[in-house]
């Protein structure tokens, strides 16, 4: 009686059927699409001979873990370079180009610099927690990679509560930020810690609620089935093209930007106000971990946004995982674009925006999805559009003080 770990059963890799399918396939988009899975099967095939059955299962898990362990830091490094290059270009200057051909080796140079920097621990800091905090921040950032569907059947762990897992794990970063700010015993980091906790919590609720319409329409929490739900008609079926999907996407993306403390909402480490927020007292490798966690968060959150709203790895002819990376990097470009243009929002405005504006908007969005679900084709498009526009208009009227007021300037002779 072989009681398997539930997510094991959903593993397509080991089931014999897919191995048979590979042999007679001529070279086509399909194989290019499944390039990684075929590679994995070959490795499994090779190791399968001399390893017992349970070990084969172990190696398949190890392979996907190693793939993620390589992918995570690698994307992080090249995201830093991408960010500096893009912001540089926006400001009419060339990004880093001294190290390597177009600055391609710059991340390695940064990495080495981070490693060699001396690791200062403030005198009366709480040594244990000071050491633990960076680990606690990177842990969720890596855990979350497991649930994202990179390609056709390239999800590391296909949990049927995938989405909920994502949200639960990403909410634990609040505690890690608290540990960091509390243990370094300095006023600036304490302020940063308080701000970031408040921001994390108040932006988590709109994020979760903006995801609920997708679950309602896709019918399940597992990321793979959500992507399947958007697969018909080659992209027209993406959730983002429905009115509630588009609004949900915008709200989700705003909350994602707020979750990983970037651009208009980067209060916790607002450079100009409280020096560097909760990671003021960190240096060297620990600071690199914070940095890595932030970038991996932004990668995974935009990956999730792609999965939920932009039809994961759906795409006309390119292999699936190329589509996924294209869309994710497009979203990351938008995040960097935010960072290049927008000034920072103040703490109370940040909270006001979350509670008074985004939250009611997501609730309205939920209602409209229900309306969409039960009405027939022509009525629902028009109806939901009108309802959403109405909700948006009412909310802007309610938050009078946020909308900029007109100013008239007269001239004296």
């Amino acid at each position, binding site marked *: 009686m072989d009681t398997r770990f*539930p997510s094991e059963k959903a593993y397509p890799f080991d089931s014999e059927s897919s191995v048979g399918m590979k042999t007679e396939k001529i070279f086509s988009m399909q194989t290019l699409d499944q390039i990684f899975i075929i590679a994995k099967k070959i490795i499994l095939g090779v190791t399968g001979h001399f390893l017992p059955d349970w070990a084969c299962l172990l190696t398949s898990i190890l392979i996907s873990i190693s793939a993620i362990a390589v992918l995570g830091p690698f994307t992080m490094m090249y995201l830093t370079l991408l960010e500096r290059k893009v912001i540089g270009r926006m400001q009419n200057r060339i990004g880093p180009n001294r190290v390597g051909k177009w600055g391609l080796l710059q991340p390695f140079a940064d990495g080495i610099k981070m490693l060699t920097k001396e690791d200062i621990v403030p005198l009366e800091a709480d040594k244990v927690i000071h050491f633990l905090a960076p680990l606690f921040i990177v842990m969720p950032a890596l855990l979350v990679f497991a649930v994202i569907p990179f390609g056709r059947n390239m999800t590391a762990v296909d949990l049927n509560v995938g989405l909920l897992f994502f949200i639960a794990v990403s909410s634990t970063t609040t505690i890690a930020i608290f540990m960091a700010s509390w243990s370094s015993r300095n006023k600036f980091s304490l302020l940063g810690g308080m701000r970031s906790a408040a921001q994390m919590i108040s932006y988590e609720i709109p994020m979760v609620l903006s995801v609920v319409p997708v679950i309602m329409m896709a019918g399940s929490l597992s990321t793979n089935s959500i992507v399947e739900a958007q697969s018909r008609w080659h992209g027209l079926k993406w959730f983002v093209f429905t009115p509630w999907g588009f609004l949900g996407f915008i709200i989700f993306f705003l909350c994602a930007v707020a979750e990983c403390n970037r651009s208009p909402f980067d209060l916790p480490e607002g450079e100009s106000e409280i020096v560097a927020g909760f990671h003021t007292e960190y240096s060297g490798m620990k600071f690199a971990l914070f940095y890595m966690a932030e970038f991996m968060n932004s990668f995974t959150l935009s990956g999730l946004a792609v999965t939920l709203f932009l039809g994961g790895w759906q795409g006309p002819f390119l292999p699936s995982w190329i589509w996924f990376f294209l869309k994710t990097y497009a979203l990351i470009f938008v995040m960097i674009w935010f960072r290049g243009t927008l000034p920072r929002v103040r703490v109370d405005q940040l909270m006001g925006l979350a509670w008074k504006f985004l939250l009611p908007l997501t609730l309205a969005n939920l209602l409209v999805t229900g309306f969409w679900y039960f009405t027939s084709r022509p009525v629902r498009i028009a109806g939901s559009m009108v309802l959403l526009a109405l909700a948006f208009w009412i909310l802007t009227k309610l938050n009078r003080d946020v909308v900029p007021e007109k100013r008239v300037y007269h001239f004296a002779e």
Partner: protein
Amino acid sequence: MGISLIAGVATVTLPNIFHATLSLVAALLGIAGIYLILHAEFLAVIQVLLYVGAVVTLIIFAIMLTEGISNKTIAQRNKLGPAAVGGAVVFLAALWGVIRSTPWPIQGGTSENSYATLASLAGSLLGDYIFPFEVISVILIAVLIGAIVIAKKDSV
């Protein structure tokens, strides 16, 4: 299993309240692991989300406001230490005795086919348990308002 036990003991004994909270977090994560072993994934994820995400943050907020920045760790144990330990041990022995003796209906392991899928869980939650679901939501709102009223500053 082991982790949660050790973390549980740590939660209770550690002098510095912040360390105690962190060990509580460890204990909760351990318990979530146990739920996974029991194939109750949904519950494990909810446990992580609710407890570790919200409740512990609430506790940390409380610590932040009450402890102030430079907190001195004062002795956390009061007088009735030894008596409590004795009582607890006796109580534990009694419990274990009961557990070991009573014949549980299914001595074997957990039967494989009967784990609850997410869909069935949701079905029953909104199906025959609809009433407690509504009551819980009312209670939560009442708690929400109550907590705010109590904690509100008098002056402002």
